[in-house]
């Protein structure tokens, strides 16, 4: 979900003025094409042939808002929900492949995936409302490229890899390398994120995501933190990934924060180093949700709280 400050007109003005002009006499969408191909090749072909503005469409919870607010005027909508590979959730020898057009609700209803990646699901469960999660997808949450997207930090922490297809073929892209800035991705023109692969988890591993928001639901992260860590049999952290959201122009993978945990038993000293590294990684903006100082402080505290949950899950 995006909240965008823009011209919001009373909806009644659209009634009986269907799609040619609004009350101000401005032209509105008139010839947007809608296609719902059943294969990736067809989808890639449609996007490649379109010379105007095209949008890949899955849950629609961002694209429809952007259209409603006149932020975009697509010439072509490519609905990818009829493409089987984009709608599957498959476990393969302990690793998982999630189609990019699988909805949040579908993931929440998948008990095996919830058990395997509870931290990823912490993030998914926080996206929008029940209504929004009935449609919104992890692929869309990524490609909408909000720095505050809730499912992205835990997916980065999980070391998820996106499978991307486009006119030049198929390639794998690390989750951390897709969002480059607010609304900006490293995807090339005509590329589609097809699915995500999450690696097989070793024993004694756990992940978690927390966000800080004034409201408990229907809010946008002031800070988000995803942590994924692995312990050896003695309880020493052998590997960790820490990701922060909403504290920079894009979700961050913070190696220094992970290194604060690796080789320790995640005791008080490690926690202090984790908080310091998380805060040091922040380069947030000042906005109505939080000041630079506030976000920087909260990032450290939130990283500690997230680590506690990830640690508990790794031990259980």
């Amino acid at each position, binding site marked *: 979900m995006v909240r965008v400050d823009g011209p919001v007109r009373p909806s009644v003005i659209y009634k009986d003025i269907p799609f040619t002009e609004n009350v101000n006499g401005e032209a509105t969408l008139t010839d947007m094409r809608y296609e719902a191909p059943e294969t990736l090749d067809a989808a890639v072909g449609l996007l490649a042939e379109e010379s105007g503005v095209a949008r890949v469409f899955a849950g629609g919870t961002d694209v*429809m808002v952007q259209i409603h607010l006149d932020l975009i005027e697509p010439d072509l909508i490519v609905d990818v929900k009829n493409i089987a590979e984009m709608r599957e959730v498959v476990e393969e020898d302990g690793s998982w492949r999630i189609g990019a057009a699988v909805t949040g609700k579908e993931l929440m209803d998948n008990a095996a995936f919830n058990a395997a990646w509870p931290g990823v699901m912490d993030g998914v469960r926080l996206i929008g*409302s029940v209504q929004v999660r009935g449609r919104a997808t992890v692929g869309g949450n990524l490609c909408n490229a909000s720095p505050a997207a809730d499912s992205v930090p835990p997916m980065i922490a999980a070391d998820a890899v996106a499978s991307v297809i486009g006119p030049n073929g198929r390639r794998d892209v690390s989750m951390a390398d897709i969002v480059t800035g607010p609304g900006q991705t490293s995807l090339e023109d005509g590329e589609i994120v097809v699915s995500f692969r999450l690696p097989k988890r070793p024993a004694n591993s756990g992940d978690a995501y927390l966000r800080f928001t004034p409201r408990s639901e229907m809010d946008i992260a002031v800070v988000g933190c995803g942590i994924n860590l692995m312990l050896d049999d003695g309880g020493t952290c052998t590997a960790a990934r820490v990701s922060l959201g909403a504290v920079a122009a894009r979700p961050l993978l913070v190696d220094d924060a992970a290194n604060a945990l690796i080789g320790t038993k995640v005791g008080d000293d490690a926690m202090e180093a984790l908080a310091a590294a998380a805060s040091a990684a922040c380069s947030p903006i000042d906005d109505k949700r939080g000041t630079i100082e506030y976000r920087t402080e909260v990032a450290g505290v939130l990283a500690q709280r997230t680590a506690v949950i990830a640690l508990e899950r790794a031990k259980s």
Partner: protein
Amino acid sequence: MAKQYVNTTINGDSHELLCDPTQTLLDVLRDQLDMTGTKEGCGTGDCGACSVTMDGVLVCSCLVMGVEANGKSIDTIEGMADGDDLHPLQQKFIDHIALQCGICTPGLLVASKALLEENPDPTEEEIRYWLAGNLCRCTGYHKVIEAVQDAAREMRGA
């Protein structure tokens, strides 16, 4: 683009429509089918006034394209009562005075019905989280929660 043929089931009835891709499902329901029970609040998925179910999944109809309804089964507030017999949730909203201006009520009812189908005995906390996507600016929600709990009790036969 030419309008597209859409064959959809709404409240159990089959409808054949021609939809422009720029029409939302909400536009189709209200402006094309005169089913004005479903309300438009924000038009951006924040308020839940336009809640309907699509193949049983609760969604905001303002964020669904009309053409996406092809082959789908849509349920709206108009299908909630059985003739003159109100759904228990509708009756309990009246009994508990769980509405004032009423603009959010169809969405709250549709969302509450979807909740009770998934969870017939929700806690107050579960109801509050489930209905977080339905904004009401009059009731303060408390009476809504009471009405849903009371309806749930009645529907469970408790």
